[in-house]
């Protein structure tokens, strides 16, 4: 038994060692983009209440700054972090090493070169007019080639797996590996290569934006949550037998739900109607996934406080539930009629991307980085600062955007209120949101410093070596929460 344990540990160390450098390169680039994107986002938000800020410089006018920030966060931080986490978890759950990691360096280089050129292009004034596809056309091929390598690695790692069974996290990672290129190539071809005409363009764009959040970022976050709950609580997912149903139902509905972003738009009315129905169908997977997660957590909330990863994962679950509920509300025609062009719509996407996805990646990173590098986190204070800033930021920005959004919606619907007055009325909330974005940025800097101490070969010399114990075997008897 003891030698079995040692074998298991040695096997995992081998897997972690094979994943170390590709994952560190992806995650390190992700963190740099997180800081840059966060800074750009803060600057763009400051311009909302202090219009003179940076207005002298053509490169930093709001119309360029806002999409540059958005793209840096989504493609720079979000995609890189998802690649790092996805490659590592796929290797772990497939019980196989990441082979030929050198190719992944090439992919990382291409991907980040593409993003750098893209963000530069946006700031230089070459952005396109499509949401989340603002990066100029010349980076498309770079990104696709880079993604092709990464996606093939995820899929082949899965297909050479050494395990008998496949776990929920693998469904979502495997699926997401196919859904992103599907969404991205179709959007690129239909909007740029052979552009469809007129009213079809916003339809394709809305489908892409909705899919990017719903079929890429949310599934990767769900993979993390499904993995870390049993992993850290030592308890199986409750009502797991419903999880496959939630998976298929979620995928089928999300793929059709993009039309709900076009309520009231001059597009054929069946498209928003179908989107609304598809969004309402999401109630079912939402309830199942909620039962899975909250049922597993119930009775074990005491354990959450002691585990950093679990704290982030709980934030992520809250973010997932909130963004789904807000998505449902925004697909009601009467609610959308008031809230459609307000900050509340931004809040839905931000909840999916930051509160759900990004927090899951933070939690995952606190788990896998010590295993990959063999070091422990050097500064507990910085770790706490990061979690505190993130939790506070998520709560405050949710409140800030929700209250400001609903106020904006009601003012916009009052014909007696001049447009300029609405802008003035919101200035206070924009200032509030700028402060919160600053708080989040402080947390990210704290994380980056700890990351450098754990991952950078030169700076990590003084960091203590991590003692990782061999995990116990999960058993069905632990199901009903004997802690």
């Amino acid at each position, binding site marked *: 038994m003891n030698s079995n344990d040692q074998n298991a540990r040695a096997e995992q160390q081998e897997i972690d060692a094979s994943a170390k450098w590709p994952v560190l390169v992806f995650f390190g680039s992700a963190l740099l983009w997180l800081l840059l994107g966060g800074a750009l986002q803060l600057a763009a938000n400051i311009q909302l209440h202090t219009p003179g800020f940076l207005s002298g410089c053509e490169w930093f006018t709001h119309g360029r700054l806002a999409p540059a920030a958005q793209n840096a966060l989504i493609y720079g931080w979000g995609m890189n972090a998802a690649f790092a986490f996805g490659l590592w978890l796929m290797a772990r759950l497939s019980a196989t090493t990441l082979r030929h990691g050198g190719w992944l360096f090439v992919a990382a280089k291409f991907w980040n070169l593409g993003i750098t050129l893209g963000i530069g292009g946006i700031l230089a004034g070459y952005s396109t007019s499509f949401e989340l596809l603002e990066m100029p056309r010349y980076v498309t091929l770079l990104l696709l080639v880079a993604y092709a390598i990464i996606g093939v690695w995820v899929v082949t790692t899965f297909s050479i797996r050494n395990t008998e069974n496949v776990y929920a996290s693998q469904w979502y990672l495997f699926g997401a590996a196919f859904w992103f290129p599907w969404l991205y190539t179709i959007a690129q071809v239909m909007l740029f290569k052979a552009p469809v005409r007129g009213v079809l363009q916003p339809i394709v764009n809305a489908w892409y934006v909705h899919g990017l959040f719903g079929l890429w970022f949310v599934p990767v976050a769900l993979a993390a949550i499904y993995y870390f709950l049993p992993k850290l609580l030592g308890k199986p997912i409750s009502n797991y037998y419903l999880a496959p149903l939630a998976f298929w139902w979620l995928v089928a509905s999300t793929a059709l739900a993009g039309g709900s972003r076009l309520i009231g738009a001059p597009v054929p009315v069946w498209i928003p109607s179908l989107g609304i129905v598809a969004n309402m169908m999401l109630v079912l997977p939402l309830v199942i996934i909620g039962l899975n997660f909250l049922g597993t957590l119930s009775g074990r909330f005491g354990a959450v406080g002691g585990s950093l990863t679990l704290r982030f994962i709980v934030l992520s679950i809250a973010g997932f539930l909130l963004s789904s509920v807000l998505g449902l509300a925004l697909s009601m025609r009467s609610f959308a009629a008031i809230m459609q062009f307000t900050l509340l719509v931004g809040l839905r996407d931000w909840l999916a991307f930051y509160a759900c996805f990004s927090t899951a990646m933070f939690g995952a990173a606190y788990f896998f980085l010590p295993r990959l590098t063999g070091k*422990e986190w050097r500064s507990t204070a910085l770790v706490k600062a990061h979690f505190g800033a993130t939790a506070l930021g998520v709560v405050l920005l949710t409140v800030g955007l929700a209250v400001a959004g609903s106020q904006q919606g009601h003012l916009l619907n009052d014909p007696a209120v001049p447009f300029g007055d609405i802008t003035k009325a919101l200035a206070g909330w924009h200032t509030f949101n700028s402060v919160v974005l600053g708080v989040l940025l402080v947390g990210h800097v704290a994380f980056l410093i700890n990351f450098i101490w754990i991952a950078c070969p030169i700076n990590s010399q003084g960091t203590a070596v991590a003692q990782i114990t061999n995990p116990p075997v999960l058993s069905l008897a632990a199901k009903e929460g004997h802690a």
Partner: protein
Amino acid sequence: MSQKPDNHFKVEQAAASDDSIQQVHAQLLGQKPEKKDGYPMLPLVFLGVMCSAVFFGSIYMAHNSVRFDPLVVNEHAKREKPGAVKVAAVSPHDLGKRVFKNTCMACHQENGLGVPGAFPPLAGSEWAQGPEDRVIRIVLLGLNGPITVKGQEYNSAMASLGGVLKDDQIANALTYVRSEWGNTASAVTPEAVAKVRAELAGRTAPWTAAELLKIGN
């Protein structure tokens, strides 16, 4: 779980191995849920939720898709099926009324009585109800000089309208004039107008009453 909480912030310790997570959950997938009172409640509840989602979703689509018509952008639109709405028939009389209002009414007035001393009446006029060859000619090239209508002498000019109005417009306007205000003359066809227009090719001078009286007897 023997570590102090702070150690968790330095290194996270796992509470289950990857292998066992996969095994246990694979077992769970194959397992039937626990039964209470003979039936597993949860699957039944979800079956109900799924069915009602599909049911109400279909009804919503039926009400709000407007038959997937690509040209309808508003869910409140009442767009009838092609062929469901009868095309309203428009008579030459109605079409002629529009031409009359735009072109003739300024002088001959809406009630067709003209302006005494300046413009002759059409209602009850022997000219308007006379031979169609005459009225077509008047409209095509206009009329100049004295004319007697319903016993009254008029001396003014009517403009040539042949260049402004098309054959069917002239025919419709004349049909209207010849059947409105108690007039009872026959309708004028576009073909008749075209025939007269062809006969008059080359002529631009307006008619006089004396000239017209020689025609169509």
